[in-house]
């Protein structure tokens, strides 16, 4: 059996009275690519945001690399160093150049010498195919370029798990492909990935497991062939027919 890197057991979370995550169980093995879909408000973003503690869960257990997420800041820091995250709105730092955006965390968190951090940053910019934008500011880039910088920024910390929270939802259609291409390349290199997305083409290409969430629960979890060809629950069927035929 291969190594378990993320484990969620009976995770529950509330926003005041609103029950966003209900008894969520999930286990992710090293190198697995998991695509999570579901209607808005189903808790899919919240679930992956709990994995690096951008949100705190109230009940249950989340273990990443054998470290349990609690209020202990040391554990949180440890986990965040190994878990990268890409956001829907890119969240690049607008006051820093592209290169500074990427080298910031290696310099300050990993205490890497500036020169080395910048060399590494450049190598990741080459990987996402925009080394020529290094000196620009985020506001001068297109959405697709910004999202690729955001991916490079995460990768520069050399994480072994990457979380993607609807990475292409804020992009114009013609820019989606350039971001997905980078993600596919990353998947081929063996990165463990949890991706919240509605890009079903991407899901079919890379996913090992599909997860469908609704109203805070994991309704269905299956291999892609089965998930798309033979979904079990009616809720999944309805959802798939809506997003595949629009």
């Amino acid at each position, binding site marked *: 059996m291969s190594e378990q890197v993320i484990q969620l057991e009976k995770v529950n979370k509330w926003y005041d009275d609103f029950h966003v995550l209900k008894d969520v169980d999930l286990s992710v093995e090293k190198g697995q690519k998991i695509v999570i879909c579901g209607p808005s408000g189903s808790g899919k973003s919240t679930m992956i945001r709990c994995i690096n503690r951008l949100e705190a869960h109230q009940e249950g257990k989340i273990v990443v690399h054998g470290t349990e997420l609690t209020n202990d800041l040391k554990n949180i*820091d440890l986990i965040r160093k190994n878990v990268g995250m890409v956001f829907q709105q890119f*969240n690049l730092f*607008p*006051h820093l150049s592209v290169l500074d955006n990427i080298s910031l965390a290696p310099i300050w968190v990993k205490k890497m010498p500036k020169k080395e951090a910048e060399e590494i940053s450049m190598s990741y910019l080459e990987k996402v195919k925009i080394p020529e934008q290094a000196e620009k*500011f985020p506001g001068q880039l297109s959405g697709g370029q910004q999202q690729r910088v955001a991916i490079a920024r*995460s990768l520069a910390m050399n994480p072994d798990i990457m979380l993607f929270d609807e990475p292409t939802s804020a992009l114009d259609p013609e820019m989606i492909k350039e971001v997905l291409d980078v993600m596919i390349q990353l998947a081929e290199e063996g990165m463990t990935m949890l991706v919240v997305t509605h890009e079903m083409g991407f899901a079919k290409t890379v996913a090992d497991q599909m997860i469908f969430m609704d109203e805070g629960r994991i309704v269905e979890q299956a291999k892609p062939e089965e998930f798309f060809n033979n979904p079990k629950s009616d809720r999944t069927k309805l959802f798939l027919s809506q997003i595949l035929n629009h």
Partner: protein
Amino acid sequence: MSTSAIQNISHNKYYNWLFRNLFSSWVNTLLTIIALIFIYQVGSFCLNWAIFAADFRYNFQGELITDRGLCSKNIMPGEYGACWAIIYARWDQFMYGLYPIEEAWRVNLVYALLPLAIIGILFDKIPFRKYFIYFTFVYPFLAYFMLYGGPGLSVVGTNKWGGLLVTLFLGVTGIGLAFPLSILLALGRRSKMPIIKSLCVVFIEFIRGVPLITLLFTANVMLPLFLPDGVNPDNLLRALVAVTLFQSAYMAEAIRGGLQAIPRGQVEAAQSLGLSYWQTTRKIVLPQALKIAIPPIVNTCIGLFKDTSLVLIIGLFDLLGIGRAALADMTWTKLYYEVYVFISLVFFIFCFGMSRYSLYLEKKLKTDNI
């Protein structure tokens, strides 16, 4: 294109502007003419009073003016304007207060070094900026040593300080000390730690709810009560404490406005990269928040700089206090306009400078990025 053709075009542009904005209809033309007459009347009166019909050091008979009776306007009432001789006569007091005049070079040196001390903070693209910044941190100690004295320099008590020296001391030190304090207060007010948060809220709301005059009185009368026996900070220091606290509360609110404008995603991105709270604050949140908060911060600085004149009610002689003292002198009494116009001008120069700088900074930061 020939030079004259270019000139013609720019002339045309000029006339077009005039026509469109000032003479586009007959109502507009009439208003323009009335406004011009008004500006001319007021302007010529002011210039005449302040410069052309004014006495500087000598009156119209060529005598050195040594008391108000020798002012031209008091010899020939109605024909002459300002009598600036009072400013010349009291110049040293306006600049140094009662600072011993043979030691005034020390104050002059501190004045002269002030621009060097702040230039490194104000502008980022100057050569040797690093060394200017070092000097910024050395300057307060150097300035205090020069002004107060110590080994090798005779001690001049702060009760002898006055005029522009007190105004600048309170204004510059007050702003300089309040800035870091206000950042901590603003961060504290947004902190998730309940005790720190309530301390900051109570402090800010208390200080903002009380007039500066009250704080000055409180500092003057009550501060000694809170301190151990024998520790008796002088008046100027007490005023400085009051002014700093006052300024920090207002500046904290300005900065909080900036902090609130930073999208949550910025902090989340920094956290997801593993940056600590202080790293996130220093590298991501504050640079963006302070940029947004520049106009209100400068606003409070200008307000504070002018409010330093309130210290005259606790017996300190700032610029305004020195002016009033000059007017109380029988030799010069009743030259109100001259004194107040002069004081206003000095305040105006500093405040206008701050205002211009904030505009420059806003423009610069806008083009720099985004």
